[in-house]
Structures are given as C-alpha cells and as structure tokens.
C-alpha cells in the first residue's frame, strides 16, 4: 500500500513536467506583448520594453522559460508578478479561498447529488426520477453566469440573506452562495451518474444474490448497491476538484472572490506566463493528490481491487 503510494507520487513527476511544458508551449503561441498591457494606451520605448521583457524572460523560447521556471520551482521560488509580488505569496493568498470554495462545492455536490441520484435510481422511471431528470437538466442548461447573476440578485441584493459579494475578508458563510452556484454545474452529472450506476447495480448478480439470501432491502441497498455504485461517482467527483477550482473563474468574478481561478485568468490576460504556470502547477498538484485518493478509495469501495 505505502509502496504503491510512493510509486504513484513518483509517477507524478512526469505529469508535472508534461503539464508545465504544454502550458509554456501554449502560452508562447499567444501573440500579445505583455509589456503593452502594462503600458496601456501610452507608447513605450523599445529600451524599456526590452528591459522589462528581459527581466521576466518574455522573449525567450518556451523551453528556456520552462528551464528558468523549473529551476526556480525546485526551491519553491516562482519569481515575481509584474507588480513585484512573489508568485508564491500570490498563491498563498489566493489558494486557501479557492480550495475552501471548491471543497464546499464538492461537498454540496456529493451530498445532494448522491442522495438524489440514489433515490432516483431506486425508483427508476418513477415520479421522483422524472422530476430529478427535469431539474438536473434545467441546471445543466443554464449557463453558470446567468445562474450566478440571478442567485446573487435574489439572495444577496433582494432578500439580503447573504453578502452578495465576498471580497478580501472572506468567511465561509460568504462562500455558501458561490459554492452552491459552482456545485450546480456539476450537480447534474453526479445525479445522472449515481442514478445510472445504482439502477445498473440493482440488477447485478451479487445484488440478486444478496436479496436471495433474504437480506432486508435497506441492507441490500446500503451494503451491496451503494458500495458498488459509488465507484464511478467517486471517480467523477474526486478528479473534479481541479476543474471546480478552475471553473471558479466565472463564479469568482461574479462574487468577487479573491481566489486562484481569477488570479490565473488575470495572469493569462496579462500574459504573465510564469505566474500562470505556477498557479496551474498547484492545481495540477491538487488533481494528482485527488486522483491518488480516488484510486485508494476504489480499494475501499471495491474489495476486489488491491494495491500492491
């Protein structure tokens, strides 16, 4: 087991390098000149431009930018943003809020999604199932920005139940509304997956066996149906933490959450390649850890899988 974990962690090294390489390559293909962004509408002299470009290695080819990046990353030094802030500090400031937001969304998604999905799966094609289908469908088809604006307007401005925006002094309560909005985008997936999986397992051999043994319906559902049905659901929810964090870009903008999704989006817009890569590296780390966790949970949920 521990050997397995160590092996997996070792395997993440090429993932990091691969992700970093792809990002540098992609961002190199971007055609803007970040210095022009800094200068705004005003002309900037070639000397100043070149001096700034040299400071941030803007004119270097992607592989040498990548080299500087990895060299710094080994000592956890990701350089500075254009505003002179160490990128590491930026990450330290913005990471916690987004992780909190994403975890809250994940929790809402998992609790509601699995519950509704299970009930729907157990009563396939019943009234509850059909209602759940319609609702999850509606949620999937409303773009997150529309939903975000509407919920903000209703719960934040009109009803005043919660602060409509989050801001620099964030609290967990402030994040509830954005977390719900963020969760909703994934919610439909979770419901559908759980439902399908539960329904499928209901007719599986081992469930029939369990029923045949005379177990109560409750016990069958809990021990035999759910345990097996959750494998794909856990995969989906688990590896989704990373995309939740990135999907937070839009939610964070609407609710003014000073998070990492937004920091990354800003950095992309401003052409701050090294900052983008550093932030995404952290997201990659979250992803890698989550997918390791998912694989370990597999073993718990499905005793047939063992890691050696």
């Amino acid at each position, binding site marked *: 087991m521990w050997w397995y974990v160590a092996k997996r962690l070792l395997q993440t090294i090429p993932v990091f390098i691969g992700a970093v390489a792809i990002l540098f390559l992609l961002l190199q293909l971007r055609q803007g000149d970040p210095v022009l962004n800094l200068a705004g509408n005003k002309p900037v002299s070639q000397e100043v431009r070149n001096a700034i470009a040299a400071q941030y290695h803007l004119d270097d080819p992607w592989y040498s930018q990548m080299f500087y990046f990895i060299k710094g990353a080994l000592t956890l030094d990701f350089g500075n943003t254009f505003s002179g802030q160490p990128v590491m500090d930026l990450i330290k400031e913005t990471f916690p809020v987004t992780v909190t937001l994403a975890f809250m969304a994940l929790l809402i998604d998992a609790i509601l999604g699995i519950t509704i999905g299970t009930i729907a799966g157990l009563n396939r094609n019943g009234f509850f199932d059909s209602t759940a289908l319609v609702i999850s469908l509606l949620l999937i088809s409303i773009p997150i920005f529309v939903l975000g604006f509407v919920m903000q307007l209703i719960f934040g401005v009109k009803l005043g139940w919660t602060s409509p925006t989050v801001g620099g002094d964030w609290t967990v309560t402030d994040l509830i509304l954005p977390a719900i909005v963020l969760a909703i985008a994934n919610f439909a997936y979770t419901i559908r997956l759980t439902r399908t999986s539960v329904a499928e397992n209901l007719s599986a051999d081992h469930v029939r066996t369990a029923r045949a043994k005379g177990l109560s319906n409750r016990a069958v559902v809990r021990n035999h149906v759910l345990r097996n049905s959750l494998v794909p659901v856990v995969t989906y929810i688990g590896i989704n933490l990373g995309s939740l964090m990135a999907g937070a870009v839009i939610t964070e903008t609407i609710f*003014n959450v000073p*998070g990492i999704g937004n920091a990354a989006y800003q950095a992309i817009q401003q052409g701050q390649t090294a900052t983008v890569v550093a932030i995404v590296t952290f997201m990659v780390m979250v992803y890698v850890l989550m997918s390791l966790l998912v694989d370990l949970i597999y073993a718990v949920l499905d005793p047939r899988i063992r890691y050696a």
Partner: protein
Amino acid sequence: MRLSRRTRLAGVALIAAGSLTLAACGGGSDDKSEGGGGSKSVITVYGTNPQNPLIPTATNEVGGGDPIDNLFSGLVAYNTDGSVTNEVAKSIEPDAAKKVWTVTLKDGQKFTDGSAVTAESFVKAWNYGANPDNKQLNNYFFYPIEGTDDIGNTVKGAKTVSGLKVIDDKKFTITLKSAESDFPLRLGYSAYFPVPDSAYDSAGKITKEYGEHPIGNGPYKLTKSGWERNKQISLEPNPDYQGVHKPKNGGLIFKFYAGGGTDAAYTDVQSGNLDVLDQVPPSALTTFESDDKVKAYNEPGSSFSSLTIPERLAHFGNDEEGDLRRAAISEAINRPEITEKIFNNARTPASDFTSPVLDGWTDKVAGNEVLKFNAEDAKAKWAAADKIAKWDGKFVVAYNNDGAGNKEFTEAMTNQLKNTLGIDAEPKVYATFDELRKDVTDRTIKTAFRTGWQADYPSMLNYLGPIYATGAGSNDGDYSNKDFDKLIQEASAAEGAARYKLIGEAQAILMKDLPAIPLWYQNATAVTAKDLKGFVFNWKQKPDYYALTK
C-alpha cells in the same frame, strides 16, 4: 496663483460643472458629521489590484494610479474643472519664449517620513523615470523636455535629462524642446510627482520596499496595513498635508475587484458594501439611473472613442479613393442610434476629435458634418470610390474583448455598415488588449480597429498632437500631414482665442483626412451609496476623492 487664465468655462463644461454643483449641494450641509467630533468616516471606493509597484513613474494604470494620485502631490493640483492650482510650487514662471520654465517651491513642504520636499526630490525622480535602465513605464510624459527622445527616454548615452537643472533647494528650471504656453497643465500628472531620498538604495535604484509602501507628500498616506495584495489599499489623511485637497473624510479604502469586476462592485454598492463605483458596468447602464438603491451620476466625460483605418489598407490609401471611403464609412455609422441602443446614452456622439469637457471645445468644427449619419451621401461616396477602384472583400473592425461594451458596439457598427453600404462587414475579436495592441504597434494589423484616448492633462492639444502629429508616439494609423503638424506647433505656443482658432483649423484638416473616425465621447458614469456626499467628477472622470464624506 491660478495658472489657468481661463476662468470662463466653455459651453458643455459649464453645464457639467453646473450639474456637479447641484449634485454637491444635494447632499446639504455635509459637515454635519455623525457621532460628532473628529470621527470622520472612511470611504470605500472601487479599485483593482495595482499591476506595477506604487512608484509615480512606474504606473499608469488606474489600479495603481488612483492610490498614487492621493498619496502624492505634484507641483500643481488639478481642480475639478481641469484647471490647475499651485500645490507644492510657489510659482512656475516661463521665460519670454515660453521654453524655459522656472519652478520655485513653497516652504515647509514635507514627505510623510518627515524629510523636506526639495527641488532635488522632483528632478531626481524625473531623471529616474526618464532613464530607460529603470524600466519606468511613465517615461513617455517627459517627452516635451529637452534631453529626451520622442518617447520621453533620456537621449542615448545620457543618464539624466539635460533640460532639468537644480538651482538650489527650492528652485529648478525645466527647458522644453519647443515653446508650450500651457506646459504647467502637464505637471499635475503622476509622472511628475516628487520622490523622497529614502526611496533610493545605495545604487540609486528605487527599492522594492518603497514600491510596496510608498512615502509621499499627498493628502493621504498609507495606513499600517497599507497595500494588502488582492484585497485593498487603505489610506488615512496625512496630518502634515498643507495643499488644496485637504481630506474631508477619515480615509479611503480602495477595495479590489478581481478582474476589474464592475458587476460585482455594482452589487456591492446596491447592498451597502461599497461607497463609490466610478464606472457603471454595461449590464447596469439601462437601469442605474432609476435604481433606488444607489445614487447615480451620468455626465459628459473626457475619454474619446474612434475607429482607425490605417492608410496601409488596400482601398484606404492617402488618395482620393481612400478619402471617399473613409468619409463614406463615417457617414454610414449612425452614432446616435448606437449611443442610445447599445450604451443607453452613456456615450455622446462625437462632433470633433477632443472632448466636450475641455476649455475651448466647440461643436462647430469645420467639416464635421462628415460625422453625421447620411445614408444617401455615404452610398454616393462609396460608389464614387468604386469608380476609381472596385471594392471587393470584407470590411473588418478589430476590437479587444476585455474592454466592457466593445463587442456590442463593434457588432452594431459593422451591422450598420452592412446595411447602409451594402458591403460585407464584420467584427474581429482579440481576446485581450495587448494582443490587439501588439498587432497595432507592430503595424501587422490588416483591418480597421477601435482606438480610444484618455487625456493625460486637460488640454485639447493632448487629444491631437500625441495621436495625429507625424511620427507621434500614439499615431497608430501613421498619419502625416505637414499643415496639421505646423498648426499644432503654433497652437502650442499661442494663447487664448488665437490658440483655439488654430486648433479649430487643425481639426478641420482631420475632418477631411479622417486619420481616425470619431465615434463618441464616453460619459462619466458612477453610482454611490445613498448616504455618500460630495461626489464630484473631475476632468479625468474620477471622483475628487478628498471631498467624499458620509
């Protein structure tokens, strides 16, 4: 001494100022501070995380610019109407040729660290800003001074600007490249602020620490918490401040909105979490004036939008065909329809190349009927151009999508061109400002593109010279007209009515050549909390922060 000799305000400016006064009076007796005594409230205002260190010569974007304007005082301070009053300067006197200006400083001026503001504080900071080795983005503002190149860098090989000479602690001279009668108008801009000695390290570089905790001489200073990245910048009144913008409030907090999200900020004003938002998001333009949760402000503003069709483009050269086609396109755009339907009248159709809030502005520029929608004439001109060389292909207008409202108006405009001229026209999106600007500055852009200008100092000439003069820094369309250059040069040196007459003649040339097609003036729009008083737009479309109270 008031340096502006123009005490009389021009038409629109007067109306603007009139409504400003009314707005300010609407608050009633604003000195009746609640709680009694000196406990004045702190005002939270919209801001964005600064993209550069907080050094006057290093930043020209609003996120850092707004705090810097409140942390520092220059030689002169801008009044609400754009005229200037001496601030740190006791006097700024020109020689007879208006080329050499002698600056004398007031006594007893101090930075917040206690050190004196001297002639050296200014000259050293300007030399630092103009030297390209220091990578300062505001060097451009030094270009009128002798010893700098076209973009305001110290001339090759020099470390300092030869036009700047310290006479003694309280006196220095500025020598200009050419005569300029309203030069002091420039001196309130942030690039011209002084920097204390403590800012520099032993190698003569401004330190990183200073860029994070700047020490200034302005109406405000940083609080202990100061600049909290990605959160806010907190300012408190500077007790030693002697100038004209004495704070009436207990301090300012620039609250940052991620990605400049004015939508979130608008919601915050509605729910009482933010006092001032100085730019209304497009999504609220139709409703903000009737929104009973906020106080709304909507006035003519100082920024100018235009459409530039470079002369390099086929069919748009500097010849009869190009002139006809430019005029046809200008006449095919129904400006009032766009400003009404797309911007809900938060823009005003342009009738010249400058801005209605400026002294000397008039809507009677010769030849400006080319800016009026005229479908028949547009078609006729396009047809006449077709006789010279047949048009084929598509008329494409590029815009950057990270600017609010750009997509909507570009789409509406190209649709109007399609409908009126019967040609194929479409918008082209650039994701970000810098991607568009790179193609523009590299001259690789193969389409027309949107352009805009926000003045650096309140003078009509600032809307003309830097954009349309031959070889000027922001002349994106590579326009060149000797007559125009000459008129601008003369207008710079002239004063009063004579100057405005010359500017009018220069603009008449632009109306004929249309190096850029004027579209509209952007209104200054804002919303504030219901209980906020003293909100006044200044010429920069910014509130006079010091005057805000609650």
